[in-house]
């Protein structure tokens, strides 16, 4: 049975949908009432800007903080935060009001950061395994690193050391560590933000934190918080850094 009318309506016309629950019928400009349309347009814009301010811009400080860790430079950080909010503003209709705005913004920020870095020719931070002076087993077995926080390294974890350590992580590790430990996102949220599977997130986060431990341990030995003599693993091998320290102390270098 041919219903030509239905065929015409269904096929020849475009089925228009307005994207996102944010837009209400009143914000669509009606061609019938031009005067009303103008009023509607202005009111709609004001409403949109207000909601952007209260829902999105409110996250600017946490975004800036993370951008600083990622870019390692205040100018670059401001730059990508601006670009992030501009993109967010242009695609505000795409965001579902009341859902996870912070995660949505971080997704834009992370993509912006990664794309910018990709354009750089040389990799400044390709730290490979051989650069490590010591094994991670050494770190986890060292009791002075962990026990009684008040008197040992972790209790004296100087904030600047942590920043330096996070900032020197390779990008692949830095991003999940920033997302998990500076922002408390869940694995699923991080996966959505980084656009990779949850398994990848877990692996990179684990390795990133391990690398962080090693860096901070190295710092602890360097600054003398952990005594050089204690920087020795079960086999009796000493970390390279600790070895250097000992040589300095004894006056060989």
């Amino acid at each position, binding site marked *: 049975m*041919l*219903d030509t009318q*239905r*065929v015409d309506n*269904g*096929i*020849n016309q*475009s*089925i*228009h*949908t*307005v*994207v996102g629950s944010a837009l209400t019928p009143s*914000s669509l400009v009606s061609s019938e009432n031009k005067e009303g349309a103008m009023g509607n347009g202005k009111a709609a814009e004001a409403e949109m*800007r207000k909601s952007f301010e209260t829902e999105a*811009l409110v996250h*600017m*400080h946490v975004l*800036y*903080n993370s951008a*600083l860790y990622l870019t390692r430079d*205040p100018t670059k950080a*401001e730059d990508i*935060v*601006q670009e992030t*909010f501009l993109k967010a*503003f*242009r695609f*505000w*209709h*795409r965001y579902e009001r009341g859902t996870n705005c912070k995660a949505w913004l971080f997704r834009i920020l992370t993509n912006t950061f990664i794309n910018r870095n990709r354009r750089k020719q040389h990799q400044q931070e390709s730290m490979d395994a051989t650069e490590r002076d010591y094994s991670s087993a050494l770190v*986890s077995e060292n009791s002075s*690193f*962990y026990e009684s*926080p008040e008197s040992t390294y*972790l209790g004296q*974890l*100087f*904030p*600047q050391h*942590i*920043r330096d350590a*996070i900032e020197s992580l390779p990008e692949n590790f830095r991003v999940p560590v920033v997302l998990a*430990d*500076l922002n*408390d996102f869940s*694995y*699923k949220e991080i996966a*959505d933000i*980084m*656009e*990779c*599977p*949850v*398994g*990848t997130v*877990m692996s990179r986060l*684990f390795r990133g*934190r391990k690398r*962080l431990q090693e860096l901070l341990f190295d710092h602890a030995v360097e600054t003398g918080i952990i005594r050089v003599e204690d920087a020795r693993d079960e086999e009796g091998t000493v970390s390279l850094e600790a070895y250097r320290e000992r040589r300095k102390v004894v006056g060989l270098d």
Partner: protein
Amino acid sequence: MNCFDIQKSLHVFIDGEYAETERHEVETHLDACPQCRRRVDRESTFIGAVRAHAPVESMPPSAAQRLFAVIAAEPAPAPVIVAQRSWWGRGLISPRGLALAATVIVGVGFGLVAARGGADDTERIATEAIASHTRSSPMEVRGSSRQVLAYLAANVPFEVELPFDGQADVRLVGARLTRVDGRDAVLLHYLAGREPLTVVQVASRDAGTPPAATTEEPRVYSENGFDAVTYRRRGVVSSFVGSGRDGRLPALVRAAWRP
């Protein structure tokens, strides 16, 4: 759960990412195993110390002012209309062939019915597919179709389908794992002639619905000058994005679509 299992996934436990039953299993083990207990305590202490002592910076007031100014100066975007055209409408309708029109009615009717349940789902996927196409991400796997399929199959919880297997002039360049609409997904990168063609595939959200409802005809979603031809089959949504200028996309997707 033994010590090896616990050690492999210390952070999953510490981050509170385990479900109820698994977490209980770990806790039971920790109650009985001082070594693992110590390991967990140390890792917890370390992560906690980093979180507590990592310096926090606020945006300087001058930078904040500049940001507000930039946003204020940005024109408010016009409400974006996403045109959802049934793909049958792409110049197919002509007076000739009642038989053709008859099939079309069935097609449209079916398409409309199916679309109601899953429209939001496929639309979001189409949007993300368009975004993925314009952002060139590195491939994780290259090689023969078999190698690519093997890699993808091992990493996603749905059956990946390579839509252009055996089609001349459409070459699979590589693939990567990605995340679309809150789920693990795959991105296939093809070259149709010399034009890049992106296919994003992800499992439908609606598990447990009758098979008929997990099939949805190809629909065209347009945004930002790109078309994403998207269909759902056997519970998997595939979204095809080609170059904005390439008129071959509907024909290619038609070839790939075999209900």
